[in-house]
């Protein structure tokens, strides 16, 4: 072996070895906690807000955090899925604000729930996700949420009352409890007909193929 090729061989071997060790540690981690670090594979929490055809055979459950960039990334993907399968797929959304990491996640969830009290849950859900980068950087986004509520034609007083209501707080804490029971570790976490979607699909086509497989298996299931 020439002196010029030796360093390249060492580099390739080291990268392969490092990858092997990292994969081994990853597998070891999962095995040692019995998969406790990963979401449960059978989850049907119920109680979330439903978007789409309520009698659709495929239920896509999402545990989301409005301030989480990945959730913002998946928001248009989920919308596109619902557009592609209007009669086959419904979304069941649950709040899972990672409050220690995202200072405004809980306030955003409360704003969406408060809008829901006036029948504009999904409208606010869309506005909050679509403007995530805008309000996330504010020291206090409350006035921004109020502005969104005004744009949606909501009654400002009722909106503020709802935001501060125990009922809204309870609905969110119930969702967090459901998420904890489902061993949701990060956001977004998706379940399709109760099965965790892992790893997260890279785009809408990959997500659609998972939905296709779920529809196929639900068609084959004994009735």
């Amino acid at each position, binding site marked *: 072996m020439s002196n010029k090729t030796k*360093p390249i061989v*060492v580099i390739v071997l080291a990268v392969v070895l490092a990858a092997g060790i*990292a*994969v081994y540690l990853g597998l070891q*981690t999962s095995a040692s906690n019995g998969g406790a670090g990963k979401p449960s594979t059978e989850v049907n929490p119920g109680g979330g807000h439903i978007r789409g055809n309520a009698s659709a055979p495929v239920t896509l459950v999402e545990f989301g955090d409005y301030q989480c*960039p*990945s959730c913002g*990334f998946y928001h248009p993907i989920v919308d596109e899925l619902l557009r592609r399968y209007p009669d086959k797929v419904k979304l069941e959304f649950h709040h899972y604000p990672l409050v220690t990491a995202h200072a405004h996640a809980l306030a955003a969830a409360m704003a969406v729930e408060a809008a829901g009290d006036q029948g504009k849950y999904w409208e606010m859900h869309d506005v909050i996700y679509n403007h995530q980068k805008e309000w996330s950087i504010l020291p206090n986004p409350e006035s921004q949420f109020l502005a969104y509520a005004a744009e949606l034609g909501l009654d400002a007083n009722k909106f503020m009352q709802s935001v501060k209501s125990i009922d809204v707080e309870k609905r969110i804490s119930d969702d967090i409890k459901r998420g904890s029971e489902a061993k949701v570790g990060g956001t977004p976490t998706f379940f399709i007909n109760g099965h965790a979607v*892992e790893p997260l699909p890279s785009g809408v086509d990959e997500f659609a193929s998972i939905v296709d497989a779920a529809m196929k298996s639900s068609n084959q299931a004994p009735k």
Partner: protein
Amino acid sequence: MKQRATAICVVAFLGMIDALYLTIMRGVHVPCTLSGGCNEVLTSAYAEVYGVPLSLIGLIFYMAVFSIAVFGIFEAAAAVGLLRWIFWLALPGFVITLVLFYLQGFVIHHFCQYCLASAAFVTTIFLLSAWPRGSRQIQA
């Protein structure tokens, strides 16, 4: 000089494992027995830049440093120049490490043990590459 390049190789190799592990485990709840705040940090808005995970950027950094350091071991004549390359890579890496340390402590209010390990690796690489003249004097 060769010893220094070897030391950088070892640290960069450990960094590669750390960054690869975090890249593979992305989106999964990782165990956090030492610092307790890994998942808060790893799912925060600061864990990625324009959708690219920081762990992947770290992996590219460690691979680059490792590769240059390996050439430094085999090409003794070019070692000083190669070490300078590592320094110019490690300098922004060290600054970013300080920023990330600040974000963990004062913005996210949680520390991630894997990120702290990476901070230690980057700092060590930076320090090892920072004084090429001193090394020449030792050689002389």
